[in-house]
């Protein structure tokens, strides 16, 4: 965990978090948040696409299948925990579940940064898993939410846009395609901007995310102890599934760490946007506080190095 805390990216997140908690007058203009998240999604996609360009695609198939399974299983588990044990309403449970089945691209970027920091190699196609994991859980969540409730006609058009053409998925896909088409060589002209600059931009973005996350903490009381606990235990459950499926589908320790982290991460861009439209009765304070206020910091600070240890352990057990 120390290596992790010595990653500038994580230290910047802490700095933002503290600034928020201490109520510093530090504010980043809205636009920087949008610009950086767009930049990061593109850069993640480009890097992934360029690596894909050089990897044997047949290896991706079983991990890809595993990801989709995770994307369906995790939200179902999460739903029942929230509904049965947490006694949350159906819409609330379904909406929160969708967030935990989906993924956080920034958490993904941080785990890659962590792995390169500790020189742990990973499969070059992991970005494909990121893209595959974003979608299914959102569909599952919406499906569950609407099973019995009748909240007027589902604005399917709007919704499909939110999901497939939502900026996060679209930008990842654009980056992936462009990166794949051009390959590492073709990307050279933009390498400095999108590769060399990436970790600095990520650090800067995490300063902002620290501020945003700290603002969510104010709502912790409102959401109740159960959800706080859920925000920490659910990622652990998911990461275990991720580790097992990672090893089972032949991923390296690094690749397994990535899959576990993806499983453990909760969406804070695609899922909220889709849920707000598709499941309006769900209280956004609940899913945002859990995803952004609890799980995101937990994964960054404690989760990632932990999942790495878990990946090693699972490998020596099942590998």
């Amino acid at each position, binding site marked *: 965990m120390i290596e992790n805390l010595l990653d500038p990216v994580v230290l910047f997140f802490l700095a933002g978090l503290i600034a928020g908690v201490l109520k510093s007058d530090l504010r980043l203009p809205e636009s920087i948040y949008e610009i950086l998240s767009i930049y990061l999604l593109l850069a993640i996609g480009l890097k992934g696409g360029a690596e894909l360009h050089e990897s044997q695609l047949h290896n991706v198939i079983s991990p890809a299948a595993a990801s989709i399974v995770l994307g369906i299983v995790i939200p179902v588990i999460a739903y029942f925990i929230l509904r049965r044990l947490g006694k949350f309403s159906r819409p609330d449970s379904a909406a929160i579940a969708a967030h935990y089945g989906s993924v956080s691209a920034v958490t993904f970027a941080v785990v890659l940064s962590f792995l390169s920091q500790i020189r742990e190699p990973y499969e070059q196609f992991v970005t494909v898993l990121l893209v595959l994991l974003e979608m299914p859980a959102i569909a599952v969540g919406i499906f569950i939410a609407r099973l019995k409730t009748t909240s007027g006609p589902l604005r399917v058009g709007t919704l499909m846009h939110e999901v497939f053409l939502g900026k996060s998925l679209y930008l990842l896909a654009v980056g992936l395609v462009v990166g794949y088409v051009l390959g590492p060589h073709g990307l050279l002209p933009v390498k400095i901007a999108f590769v060399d600059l990436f970790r600095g931009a990520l650090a800067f973005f995490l300063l902002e995310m620290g501020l*945003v996350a700290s603002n969510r903490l104010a709502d912790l009381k409102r959401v109740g102890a159960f959800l706080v606990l859920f925000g920490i235990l659910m990622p652990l459950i998911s990461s275990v599934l991720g580790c097992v499926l990672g090893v089972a589908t032949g991923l390296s320790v690094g690749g397994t760490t990535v899959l576990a982290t993806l499983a453990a991460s909760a969406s804070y861009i695609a899922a909220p946007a889709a849920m707000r439209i598709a499941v*309006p009765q769900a209280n956004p304070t609940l899913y945002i506080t859990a995803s952004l206020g609890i799980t995101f910091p937990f994964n960054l600070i404690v989760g990632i190095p932990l999942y790495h240890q878990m990946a090693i352990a699972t490998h020596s057990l099942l590998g």
Partner: protein
Amino acid sequence: MEKRKLVTIVTEENIEQLVINDVKKLGAHGYTSVSASGEGSRGTRKGDWDLNKNVRIEIVCDDSTAHAIVEHLMKTYYQDYAMIVYLADVEVLRPQKF
């Protein structure tokens, strides 16, 4: 100068397009929108991340359209979304525009 109604809507930016489409369907000839932050019964909305932004939409229209808009928004969005709506009297030249 002729009298018209000014409808002011403050709501979540993520439903701006939906609201505007509805408003146009109800007969408004135009609107003006400004990004905003604020606080109300659904908590503070400081615009520090995507779903936390407000938008302030203004529509100049005739009395009946104004009331149609208010009623429609009330029943469609009030229950699930952060939203307020209020009306004011204004005077315009070129009334045919509104």
